[in-house]
């Protein structure tokens, strides 16, 4: 009660209409998607083999990208939160680059690094015969590149918030490094780790720009849901809307899951 009154009291009246406009601006497109969805034919649209294939590929790639991000991101977050290295602020800035970089540019950048003629990809091709672009692996790499910052930032934050003195207390009780990690540190950072994983997965699932640039649009191997939506829009808008609805539902589920977790763990 009191907070609401304080809020209303401290609010310049001129802000209110703009705030209302902002809400409409955010909500209307979602409403439009729901209103214009081809509800009668939606079952048929979604059970098209291409749609199912794209959905499956998206799920698999987003999950693999998330695993890759966990394997690389957790150690990186650890170094950023706990390490005592000199260029740490620079490193942190580097981690956030994919957040602000246009995804298409990210795709091009991946090409220059991992493409057949890229600075690293050239050697991959020469020594191992591995060519990354336009494969499912490329989708995973592109998604991981874009999604990694979400995981690193969330985990780093929770590592910083976790009281390191608890780890010292554990050590005085006779717990070695791994035992402390397993029974103290990881449980303490679990909420942040979970939130970071979900955000990372959601970002990977929606990845479009870097994917289409670095991996292309090959049905069954690189044509993920967002790419499928984009292509469908050109030949059959109602199919695009139906597919978009699926992604919308997934996002809402993720959002609900996150809220639940955040509310559940923080008091």
């Amino acid at each position, binding site marked *: 009660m009191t907070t609401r009154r304080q809020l209303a009291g401290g609010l310049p009246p001129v802000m209110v209409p703009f705030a209302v406009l902002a809400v409409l601006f955010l909500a209307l497109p979602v409403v439009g998607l729901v209103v214009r969805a081809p509800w009668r034919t939606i079952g048929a649209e979604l059970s098209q083999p291409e749609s199912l294939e794209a959905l499956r590929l998206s799920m698999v790639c987003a999950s693999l990208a998330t695993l890759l991000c966990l394997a690389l991101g957790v150690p990186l977050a650890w170094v950023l939160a706990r390490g005592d290295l000199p260029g740490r602020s620079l490193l942190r800035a580097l981690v956030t680059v994919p957040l602000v970089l246009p995804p298409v540019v990210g795709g091009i950048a991946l090409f220059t690094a991992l493409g057949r003629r890229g600075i690293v990809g050239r050697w991959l091709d020469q020594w191992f015969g591995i060519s990354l672009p336009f494969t499912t692996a490329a989708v995973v790499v592109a998604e991981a590149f874009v999604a990694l910052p979400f995981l690193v930032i969330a985990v780093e934050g929770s590592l910083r918030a976790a009281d390191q003195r608890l780890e*010292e*207390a*554990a*050590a005085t*009780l*006779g*717990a*070695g490094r791994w*035992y402390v990690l397993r029974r103290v540190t990881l449980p303490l950072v679990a909420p942040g780790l979970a939130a970071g994983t979900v955000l990372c997965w959601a970002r990977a699932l929606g990845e479009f720009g870097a994917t289409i640039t670095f991996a292309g649009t090959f049905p069954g191997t690189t044509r993920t849901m967002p790419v499928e939506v984009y292509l469908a829009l050109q030949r059959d808008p109602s199919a695009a809307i139906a597919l978009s609805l699926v992604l919308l539902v997934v996002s809402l589920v993720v959002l609900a899951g996150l809220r639940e977790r955040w509310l559940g763990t923080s008091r």
Partner: protein
Amino acid sequence: MTPSGRSSGGSSSGGSATYDRTVLEAQLVVRRAGFTLDVALSVAGGEVVALLGPNGAGKTTALRALAGLVPLDAGFTRIGQEIAEDAGARVRTPPERRRVGVVFQDYLLFPHLSARENVAFGLRAGGVDRCDARGRADAALARFGLAEHTAKRPAALSGGQAQRVALARALVGEPRLLLLDEPLAALDAGTRIEVRADLRRRLADFAGATLVVTHDAVDAFVLADRLVVVEDGRVVQTGTPSEVARRPVTAYVARLVGLNLYRGVAADGTVTLDGGGSLVGAHHDDGAVFVSFRPSSVTLHRGRPDSSARNAWPVTVEALEQQGDTVRVALTGQPDLAADVTPLAVAELGLEPGARVWAALKATETEVYPA
């Protein structure tokens, strides 16, 4: 205080042969920018020693060094028969292998574990199986009067309960050495008295060596058999609580125990004070001495008193402060002093800042001891 009454009883845990002897012996040297900790400590089995000192004196650093959480720059730590650390020989046992129980300030209970799992943690880390560890944790918590709280998370415990869980957690592994860092500082004044008395009983039952770090004189005096007073990273005084209380040697300790303290040179029964003025004291040898007396031993008079008091000197009132049913009067003169008088005396003498009166003190009320 019973300095030696706890030595041999109840050493049912392992290694009882060493418990009557010195369990902890250490020379702790830790260097920081602008600060050096350099203290020697020894604690016998069954003995409780308080490391007493103002904030920033290095007490917590000393405790962390003993636990192995801070490396020594020089010196050594011996716990039982084992050299846990020797800076010269580059020997250093990590904290998890020292068998030292620590009760941290704010207790540092694991927030995601129940009281039972907190206490069982060390046992489980040491390889005791889950069932056994839980059984022992439950038994330990029951001994600490927490049988109904075993399933609770730390957030659901009161301050006093959390303190007992922390103590149970530190003791369940039967350490040789128990370290407590400001064990009562996190409690409010009401529960503090009760928890302090309880803690004293618990420590009396512990057969190993106990070191309590505190800046609170009452905590130190109630809990400890022996005090080690630290200021600026150095030991300034050691002794039983009554020795320290009666004969403080630094302004800090004097303030803690509420005494006026001066340093001076004694000759022919009179002590010439370093800070100016002189006092006639009780019998003592000549040479460098400390003189101390209680604020309540001082009487204040409007003019030069013609009582039997051997010491009398003019003073000026600087400040007054009500303390319980007496008034503490800060006075400047040769020497400065604090005096405790009744509110009635304040009214009769018209004591207020700036007022000029005479202070009188009997020679028999002073304590004179070698510096």
